[in-house]
């Protein structure tokens, strides 16, 4: 009776002891420096990747028109508001003429007076002509009479002088007429000038389009060149996109692109690169490009809306490809942890092009079919023991 009791007790104790010892062994081996690091591996694949460029930009109008007066003036009336569709030559706004009309009326009066002056001068010319004709006839007659000595020499001299005076008077009258005519011409030119100015006070639409901004209201005084109305052509919207220079290799005209507008998150519309700007942004280190829509989405997006642009580059020839998560930086060298006989060895690699899904070409250092570490539960070092797990979810625990 005594022995079984002792045995049972010993067995229980032994059981507890073994369980504790097992737990302790587990704890020592699975945590701390002796523990293996769980890793997920992948095989280097041979495949073709299609690199893509990613940039963001804003919707801009290809042409935008700023319409304002060419001289300083106060705005009289504005006929259009933001969003109005306008036709070419439609009157958008008028600048208050201030004294322009009065000046034109004054000039009209001046012109009337000048016309009268011209008439008076013409009459003077006729008068002078008549006087000269008479004087010349008198002089001729007295010359004839002088030959027969019927008149005195003095009388002949007097008539000759009269004729010369009448000549001079005619010249003076003709000059007066010319002056009067030029005066009239000048006043008419002045008036034409004012009429032109009056026309310039009317701001007209240069093209068919939509009013995008109304920058001032009636009564505002504008300086010359300041825009009163801004309008755009809504049929010509494009994206002014910016691409980080470090990842802008291969950006060129006519490449297909997909445009995702912020207001339409998740849906992308097709487009293409219309122009790569000659000037890049030196401060932000970005290259600039204009991307046009294949078909403009309706309703058309507001100017200034943010858009993400993904530019698809042509596919590259098949080569060794690894996920970018496999690339590690050890001591300043880029490489991957390669599995060799159950152990890991750091292998430096040279990288080629990459795509937006995180695949990178390996140009040197790895062969197709090599096994490399993609994910690891902690930072790997040369001496790390590894445990390859099939389920990537295990690393997240």
């Amino acid at each position, binding site marked *: 009776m005594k022995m079984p009791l*002792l045995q049972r*007790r*010993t067995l229980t*104790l032994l059981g*507890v002891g073994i369980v*504790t*010892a097992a*737990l*302790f062994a587990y*704890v*020592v081996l699975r*945590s*701390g*420096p002796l523990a293996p690091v769980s890793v997920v591996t992948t095989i280097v694949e041979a495949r073709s990747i299609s690199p893509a460029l*990613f*940039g*963001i930009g804003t919707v801009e109008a290809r042409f935008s028109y700023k319409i304002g007066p060419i001289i300083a003036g106060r705005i009289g009336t504005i006929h259009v508001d933001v969003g109005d569709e306008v036709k070419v030559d439609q009157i958008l706004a008028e600048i208050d003429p201030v004294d322009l009309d009065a000046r034109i009326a004054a000039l009209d009066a001046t012109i009337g007076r000048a016309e009268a002056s011209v008439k008076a001068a013409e009459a003077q010319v006729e008068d002078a002509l008549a006087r000269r004709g008479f004087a010349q006839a008198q002089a001729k007659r007295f010359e004839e009479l002088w030959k027969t000595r019927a008149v005195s020499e003095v009388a002949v001299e007097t008539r000759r002088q009269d004729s010369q005076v009448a000549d001079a008077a005619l010249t003076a009258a003709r000059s007066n007429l010319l002056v009067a005519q030029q005066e009239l011409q000048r006043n008419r030119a002045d008036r034409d000038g004012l009429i032109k100015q009056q026309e310039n006070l009317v701001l007209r639409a240069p093209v068919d389009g939509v009013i995008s901004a109304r920058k001032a209201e009636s009564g505002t*005084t504008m*300086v010359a060149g*300041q*825009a009163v109305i801004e309008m755009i052509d809504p049929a010509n919207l494009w994206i002014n996109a910016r*691409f*980080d220079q*470090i*990842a802008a290799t291969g950006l060129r005209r006519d490449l297909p692109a997909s445009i995702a507008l912020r207001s339409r*998150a998740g849906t992308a519309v097709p487009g293409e690169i219309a122009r790569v700007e000659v000037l890049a942004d030196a*401060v*932000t280190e970005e290259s600039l490009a204009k991307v046009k829509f294949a078909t403009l989405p309706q309703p058309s997006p507001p100017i200034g809306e943010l858009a*993400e642009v993904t530019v698809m580059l042509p596919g590259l020839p098949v080569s060794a490809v690894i*996920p*970018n*998560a496999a*690339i*590690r*930086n050890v*001591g*300043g060298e*880029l490489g991957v942890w390669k599995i060799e006989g159950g152990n890991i060895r750091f292998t430096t690699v040279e*990288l080629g092009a*990459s*795509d*937006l*899904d*995180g695949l*990178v070409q390996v140009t040197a250092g790895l062969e197709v079919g090599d096994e490399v570490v*993609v*994910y*690891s*539960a*902690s*930072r*790997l070092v040369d001496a790390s023991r590894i445990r390859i797990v099939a389920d*990537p979810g295990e*690393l*997240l625990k």
Partner: protein
Amino acid sequence: MISLAGRDILHSWGKFVFTGVGLGLLIGVTFTMAGVYRGMVDDGKVLLDNSGADMWVVQRNTLGPYAESSSINDDIYRMILAIPGVDRVANVTYLTMQVQRGNADVRAMVVGIASADPSAPGRPPFLVAGRQITRSHYEAVADVAAGFALGDTIIVRRSRYSVVGLTRRTVSSGGDPMVFIPLKDAQEAQFLKDNDAIVRQRRRTGENPEFNRPGVPGLLDAVIASQNSNPYVNAVLVRIKPGYDHERIANDIARWKRLTVYTRSEMEEILIGKLIATSSKQISMFLVILAIVSAAIVAFIIYTLTMDKIREIAVLKLIGTRNRTIASMILQQAIVLGLIGFVVGKITATFAAPLFPKFVLLVTADTVTGLVAVIVICALASVVAIRMALKVDPAEAIGG
């Protein structure tokens, strides 16, 4: 020869084991507390390791970027790259903030990294899922501790980032998980307050007659545009080519570029010696108290256990057992108790460590020190008990 200690333990094994387990829990708490302290220090070290930098260039006379705020122009890196011996440089921004996760928010350190270059310092050193950032905007790699899953949307300020990769043990010195986003987005996030504030700022600027002069059209627009850009980063991470003298390059940058530079050892000194100094001292103080209390309790338990069987010891003496045998019995028991406590403590500490919100690092050296300390304390505690046992009068076995 019969083992007196073994026989005695077997005799009242339940009591003995439970005492051991209780002692083990106490030792486990001590180990965990040591782990909390080590974890704090490790948070700081891992922050420096993860940055992958040999030196940090920060605003002049600041302890940035971790211990103080620092702000330098984002094109300074070009000057530093031109210095001989510099291998790689990268702009970086750090911003500790609440980021939105679904309807709740989580405290995280948002790190802006130069995304496209795989060899640039500052990137997450390894991933546990997903991929590294490939787009220059609106992608994020988050630490698993932040609770995000692949494909989740993180909202920072007014931008939405999709989580494309997950990493582990990338934390700030305060233990907050990191969220890596592209640098340009991070600069914006650091600068943009919120839309209301921007609108108010614009209105304020518009009402300032200095900026809104009637005769100078376009001035206001230009002023507002200049207010809404952020050409600043917190630090430039620098990696040095092998074989170059770090101190000398650091001195060159500090002297000629008029900036403050910290090398790895200086930065470690700042983080551990200054940033977490008080809180780590607090924890280590607590650890010391806990160790003393544990020692006292161990001594007390062994003393009580011996006192419990003082009558049996008297009988042993009565039948002529040698003092050495009795002493070794008590000593052996004390040490076995200590070992049970140690094993249970190590197991509980290891299993409890992942449950803590902040990182708890159980260092092997601490475990070994703990084992030695437990054995020494048990041995010392048994000395008192042994003295009591040896002084007992054999007559007590009959009397009382």
